[in-house]
């Protein structure tokens, strides 16, 4: 089952990050393929995404259920496919970065891993016709980190095949969301 994690940093205090993240209406449009969402309750919402899986683009409806709403540090949720046989879960973690601390870096990648990552990003751009948001330009010393972990699992007999297709698309999607949130906050915070 494909699972990815991506971390970025920003020169915005954690409280401000939380203020933004806690209202899903703020960042919903930053999701890759976002079409619309409907809030059912504090914990439940339905999301319609245009999912680029492999070669074609297809509308996917997912029900999101918040399992942990622990501001200003952490939001966890589960995902259930309404029109596709998929489920998944994810976590957004916001953490302060102590002044003078060494910069938070994504896991160190060896040369081969960096090449694979480059290829995935290139394919995402070529196949899906758009590029992934790059890590934002940080205005000042980093104050917060934002991590996004996402797992998606295709179910049913075709699951192994669909998971193989989902895998390469997940990391760019996670990067895209985290970096867009960070870039937005960098742009809009004084």
């Amino acid at each position: 089952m494909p699972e990815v994690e991506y971390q970025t940093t920003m020169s915005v205090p954690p409280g401000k990050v939380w203020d933004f993240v806690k209202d899903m209406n703020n960042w919903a449009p930053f999701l890759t393929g976002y079409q619309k969402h409907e809030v059912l309750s504090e914990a439940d919402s339905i999301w319609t995404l245009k999912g680029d899986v492999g070669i074609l683009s297809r509308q996917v409806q997912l029900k999101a259920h918040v399992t942990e709403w622990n501001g200003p540090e952490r939001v966890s949720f589960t995902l259930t496919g309404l029109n596709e046989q998929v489920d998944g879960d994810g976590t957004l973690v916001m953490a302060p970065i102590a002044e003078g601390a060494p910069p938070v870096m994504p896991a160190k990648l060896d040369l081969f891993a960096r090449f694979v990552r480059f290829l995935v990003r290139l394919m995402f751009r070529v196949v899906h016709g758009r590029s992934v948001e790059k890590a934002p330009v940080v205005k000042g010393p980093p104050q917060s980190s934002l991590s996004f972990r996402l797992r998606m699992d295709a179910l049913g007999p075709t699951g192994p095949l669909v998971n193989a297709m989902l895998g390469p698309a997940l990391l760019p999607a996670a990067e895209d969301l985290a970096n867009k949130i960070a870039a937005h906050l960098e742009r809009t915070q004084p």
Partner: protein
Amino acid sequence: MAWFGKKKEAKPDFEVDVLVIGSGGAGLTAAIAAHDAGAKVMVIEKAERVGGTTAVSGGVLWIPNNHHMAEAGVADSRAEALQYVLRLADGRSSQALVETFLDQAPRMLRYLEGHTPLKFKALGRYPDYHPEFEGGKPGGRSLDPGLFDTNTLGPWKPRLRRSPVFGATAMSVTEATDWGVFSKPLQLPFELLGKRYAQGLVCYGAALVGGLLRAALDRGVEPQLRVAARELLVEDGRVVGLRAQSGDKDIVILAKRGVILASGGFEWNSALAAQFLGGVLTHPNSPPGNEGDGLKLAMSVGADLGNMSEAWWCPSLCIPGEEYEGRPLHRGDFATRSLPHTIIVNRAGRRFVNEAQNYNDLMKPFFAFDPMRYERANLPAWLVFDQQYADKYALMTFMPGQPLPEWIPRADSLDALAGKIGVEAAGLSATVKRFNGFAARGIDEDFQRGESVYDHFYGDPANQPSPNLGALEKGPFYALEVHPGAIGTKGGARTNGQAQVLRPGGEVVEGLYAAGNVMAGITGPGYPGAGATIGTAMTFGFLAGEHAAGRSLT
């Protein structure tokens, strides 16, 4: 320099011997042949990926009397193939061109196998599309390119076009047949297919184009992507180059030995389709870039046109919201309608065709015109099926037993379903009752569904007494609209046996060639067998490349 009667001074951006417009099967084969015959070749492609219509196809070549048929235990002859193709062409093609194809296609095949990574295997059980006609065969003329490892393309890997329908399931046509892709979808080895996808293996049209692209790259011919043809350059009546658009820039390419049109059909150009086609085409199955660019170029220099009313027709089914390159995806339906527990009806609730016959001929009754009502009697049309179908077989991407999405109309009774889709309830009930009787006896007295070995190929061999007939009797009952589609048009510039474009008087337009769906198809309204599209396209591409370069390769 005078170009097409106009005085134009322009410094060329590129100067080559042979320019090929389009990177599908016809274009890449033409490029390989022209290169090997000694020419400096350039290929331009409007899209951002290589492969055109071929890449989204089944990737099969139909080549009668090919040297692999013996391995499949099928005997063939030129005479049988000629008789068969001419019958299907229905007097609307040139016998000379059919004979050229029959004589040259096996040579092209041998050459490619000898000089490129491509290796083919005869599909011994894939029948011609009218195998019972004189000269038809129960298999062997259609050739499978197998699998292709896209990693061998290096940086070109992501630039290889893949089918939105077949592109993820890396199984060869041979495997698909052996594994029962249509009749036993739950038994497909999805673990293996997932591994193959992750490994970068592709099948069908992407495999064929992958091999051709690798061969082109090996020759130093790198297709120039996102370059759209705009205007042929003509000097003293001879085509000498092309004005094209590369991004925002106009470029001029001089091609001293010739320009080969291999840019596909016009099925995505609704104006051209409405103007020329004899049938209705609202849901093409090909890449959206097939807008008749090459046809318009040919017309601009006075080319004669042929077979313009015809397409490689194919019924389309759609999943709302699915897109390919920003346009709605229309899935060609090759098997659903052939499997048990399905029928196709018109608004009167009546069947009007053998649902299991080949997709090209299937569509022709869809276009039947009612002169009294002044409307198409069989449009809209609906595929109607029952829960037994949903339990046993796949419907597009929905696997057996998986709940079907809510957007598919359904009802517990046929009458209620008819009301939902605007079909006459009494007609539908009577039709199903009669069809269920046929299913019980295994004989379709109205349309002979299940009589041809072709029908059986797409049926369920475990279903008795007919692999194609099963009653619709277990609710809920479902309906899906069947849209008129095509995998490409097949009318275009008329050519001679060297693929040189002709004027209405029969004289050659010097320096201009056509191959593939931009060329007037040689099979008229007929579709002889799987890969007749690509087999003819690559053969005339090969001939065009040789002739433009000025040397025969064998």
